[in-house]
């Protein structure tokens, strides 16, 4: 009996010790909770590659440090991997990312300032008539199979693939200017002329579209649209794919990885005149979800990861004694916003939005009251773990078009109450009523499953309830929500996000033009056209139309500044915050010049692995080699 008791006690003690050990290991110590810890504020010393002609071949010469050749860089992509390797048919992010590695465009975006920077093109000349662009190709360019890259390839790509509507037509659609497409002509073997029907600013950056090898794509194009959609599918033999980028496809293993290897014919050299890229291989592991990605990074299977806000504090505390380094890539280029439904139209005699609610939503004071009642800073602190910044404008914080005159402001519940009061709203027993005696109550939607937006919803609901409003917060399934927003219009208020480009506000025209397809806050059916347009919507239309036709940055900026100001004042969309992107990469990789516009891998061909026996990670790694 006694022996049994002793044995029992022994087991309990053992269990306690084991459990305690586990707990301690996983609890982050409080001292390490740093707010917004990573600041790479020091000037980036990156210099973009320059043109250099050696023996009649126009190379691009890297200006970064000379590195070692060899090694591999393992990254990861979340989801089910690429759907196609055809750069003209990629409809999802992963596929376009993979295509972007394999195919270069005529130009690329300068990662420092967002201006065009030559790639396949040696230079691009904009003519004074603002519609003609002369593109001079590099001499001696080669595809990965050794055939030369010439003006024929460029003309073929634009005329026979893009303008012919092969594959994904979004590039073509965005270039239709007053019903006409630009004209592309070959002048000589290395010179191409582009003429747009009217001056059109976004056109220049469109030249970053990949160029296809004519000898390889022509048979597929001849077989028509349907065949083209399945051309270069993921079942294509990797060695058959002809590319122009720094890397070419080596292997694709479904649901496991995509492996790229060095393209020996790439046109970039280092300062010593050796051909880049330095790395032998880039590997993308295909991981199903973000948790697995984190595990793989911690298990040293991948070299690079983008961190969620909640993980940053822990990684920051691990950084000094580990083999990775954190970088701050600046604000995310997507925007998160809250919007009210301004729709006041009917369908089959029935209003989309309840007429009582319509009165509130269309009241600018009501929208302003909501805007100053929400506590953005608190959201950044609690939801994004301090890794983010409050947002007040429709352009993201890293946009080169950001209107910096629009000042941020804090939560001010007193001001909110004043706004409401001046529109006749009144409080009774802590409940808010409008001037006709209707209780202010509405639904707030977001897509279920997005924990960030759900958390924002809860905080917005609390903030608005301080004003006496009754908010029914309803996270619903993504597809149903989209359906409400773009088809049935039966919603009151919504929290959503939109992707955007920090370089080109014109991409948002679908959202801001009054007949745009994503003009969610006051959506009109195609039949309705521009019916019931509000004065400030008209102004927005004007800004977007004019902004696109102007080609000089300074002039465009004026229009886009004005558009941001209108949105800032009229509050059809109330912007919340943008998370800051923090990434971690093994410190054996050198020539890392992260920028907000280019990310971390914009100079993938220059990145090399330091061959240093003293780097901490030599002793690690997998056993089965």
């Amino acid at each position, binding site marked *: 009996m006694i022996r049994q008791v002793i044995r029992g006690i022994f087991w309990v003690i053992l269990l306690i010790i084991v459990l305690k050990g586990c707990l301690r290991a996983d609890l982050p110590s409080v001292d390490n909770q740093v707010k917004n810890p990573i600041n790479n504020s020091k000037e980036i010393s990156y210099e973009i590659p320059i043109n250099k002609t050696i023996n009649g071949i126009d190379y691009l010469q890297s200006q970064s440090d000379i590195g070692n050749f060899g090694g*591999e860089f393992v990254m990861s992509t979340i989801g089910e991997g690429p759907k196609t390797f055809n750069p003209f048919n990629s409809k999802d992010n992963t596929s376009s990312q993979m295509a972007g590695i394999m195919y270069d465009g005529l130009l690329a975006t300068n990662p420092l300032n967002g201006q065009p920077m030559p790639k396949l093109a040696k230079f691009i000349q904009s003519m004074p008539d603002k519609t003609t662009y002369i593109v001079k190709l590099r001499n001696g360019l080669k595809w990965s199979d050794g055939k030369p890259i010439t003006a024929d390839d460029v003309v073929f790509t634009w005329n026979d693939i893009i303008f012919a509507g092969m594959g994904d037509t979004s590039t073509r659609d965005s270039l239709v200017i007053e019903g006409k497409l630009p004209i592309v002509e070959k002048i000589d073997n290395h010179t191409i002329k582009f003429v747009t029907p009217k001056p059109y600013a976004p056109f220049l950056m469109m030249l970053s579209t990949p160029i296809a090898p004519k000898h390889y794509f022509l048979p597929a194009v001849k077989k028509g649209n349907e065949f083209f959609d399945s051309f270069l599918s993921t079942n294509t033999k990797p060695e058959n794919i002809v590319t122009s980028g720094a890397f070419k496809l080596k292997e694709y293993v479904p649901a496991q990885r995509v492996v790229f290897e060095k393209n020996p014919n790439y046109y970039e050299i280092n300062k010593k005149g050796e051909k880049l890229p330095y790395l032998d291989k880039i590997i993308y592991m295909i991981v199903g979800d973000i948790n697995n990605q984190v595990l793989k990074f911690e298990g040293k299977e991948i070299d690079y990861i983008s961190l969620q806000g909640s993980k940053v504090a822990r990684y920051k505390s691990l950084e000094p004694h580990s083999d990775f380094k954190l970088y701050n890539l600046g604000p995310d280029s997507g925007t998160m916003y809250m919007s009210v439904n301004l729709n006041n139209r009917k369908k089959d005699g029935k209003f989309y939005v309840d007429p009582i609610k319509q009165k509130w939503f269309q009241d600018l004071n009501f929208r302003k009251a909501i805007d100053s009642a929400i506590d953005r800073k608190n959201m950044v602190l609690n939801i994004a773990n301090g890794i983010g910044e409050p947002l007040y404008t429709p352009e993201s914080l890293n946009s080169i078009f950001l209107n910096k005159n629009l000042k941020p402001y804090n939560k001010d519940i007193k001001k909110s109450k004043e706004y409401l009061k001046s529109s006749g709203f009144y409080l009774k027993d802590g409940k808010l009523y409008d001037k006709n005696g209707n209780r202010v109550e509405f639904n707030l939607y977001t897509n279920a499953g997005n924990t960030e937006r759900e958390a924002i919803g809860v905080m917005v609901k609390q903030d608005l309830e301080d004003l006496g409003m009754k908010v029914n917060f309803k996270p619903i399934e993504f597809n149903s929500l989209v359906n409400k927003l773009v088809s049935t219009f039966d919603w009151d208020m919504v929290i959503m996000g939109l992707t955007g480009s920090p370089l080109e506000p014109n991409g948002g025209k679908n959202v801001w033009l009054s007949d745009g397809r994503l003009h969610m806050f006051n959506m009109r059916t195609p039949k309705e056209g521009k019916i019931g347009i509000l004065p400030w919507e008209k102004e927005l239309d004007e800004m977007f139309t004019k902004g696109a036709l102007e080609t000089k940055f300074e002039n465009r900026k004026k229009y886009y500044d004005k558009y941001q100001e209108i949105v800032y004042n009229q509050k059809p969309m109330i912007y919340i915050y943008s998370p800051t992107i923090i990434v971690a990469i093994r410190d054996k990789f050198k020539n890392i010049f992260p920028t907000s516009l280019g990310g971390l891998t914009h100079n993938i061909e220059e990145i090399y692995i330091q061959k240093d026996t003293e780097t901490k990670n030599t002793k690690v790694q997998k056993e089965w080699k």
Partner: protein
Amino acid sequence: MEIIKYIIKRIIQTIPLLILVSLISFFIIRLSPVDPLAELKLNPSVSPETVEKERSRLGLDKPIIVQYGKWAFSFIKGDLGVTSTGERVSQKLKERIPNTLLLTSLVIFLTWIVGIPLGILSAVKWKTSFDRILTILTSIGMAIPSFFFAVLLLLFAVKTGWFPIGGLTSPNYQELSFWGKFFDMLHHLVLPVTVLFTISLAGLQRQMRGNMLDVLDSDYIKFARAKGLGENVVIFKHALRNALNPMITLLGFEFAGLLSGAALTEYVFQYPGLGRLILEAVMKSDINLVMASLMMGAVMLILGNLIADILLIITDPRIRGAQ
């Protein structure tokens, strides 16, 4: 001859069943609020014309009944259609089926080879400490949810670095020698197999033990023992053969689970099997892919039952007589 007639009869019986299954699944998927075009619609740079083009390409602009008819017609012809991204469904399935089969058949093989003897042993050694310890262990095995166990093992792999974190092959797989490849795969398979093995072993061992105990308690075993037969003969010749019958039915179900039984574990371990593919397909309402997998599941279940029944006919003279 009898048996062939029986098989044909059974196969004919499955046809209306399959039609019903396909009808129900098709309509449920299509009536669900999932819109395969939602993401496209919310992308600011996609034009309405492109969305319309996609709609007609996926056949979403036609009434449901027409969509079903089109699907069913090509299904009968053996064409599974294309996924929403334009890849062939059959090709996608072909990529994944071998991986899933490798995992599940390995697990089934291991569980049966270990589970059955353990079940017999603990029945024979009923109420000894061996039986009790095994009972505790199998109870634990049955109680742990597979995904939780899988996550625990993954964390174990991260902390120790002894095992790869999910997947099936290493990035340098292609450059390995034959044995290198073999061990690389084996190394990746250890953890997922452990999870599935522990969980299904528990059930199987309990089942076998229960059957065996029932049989050992019956009159003819008592009679055999009374007759003075050796214990080995009693157990292996008389008891085991009778106790195995219910297990054969179970084997039929195991067969049905060959392609779909490991989905959860596959997902946690990022195993490149059918589980992940189909989960994504369901989320995106990729109708052809989902339908193909559902039909595959139904066919496997029917086939599994059929095989079990045929095996029973072969092993059990009583059923053979009733035919």
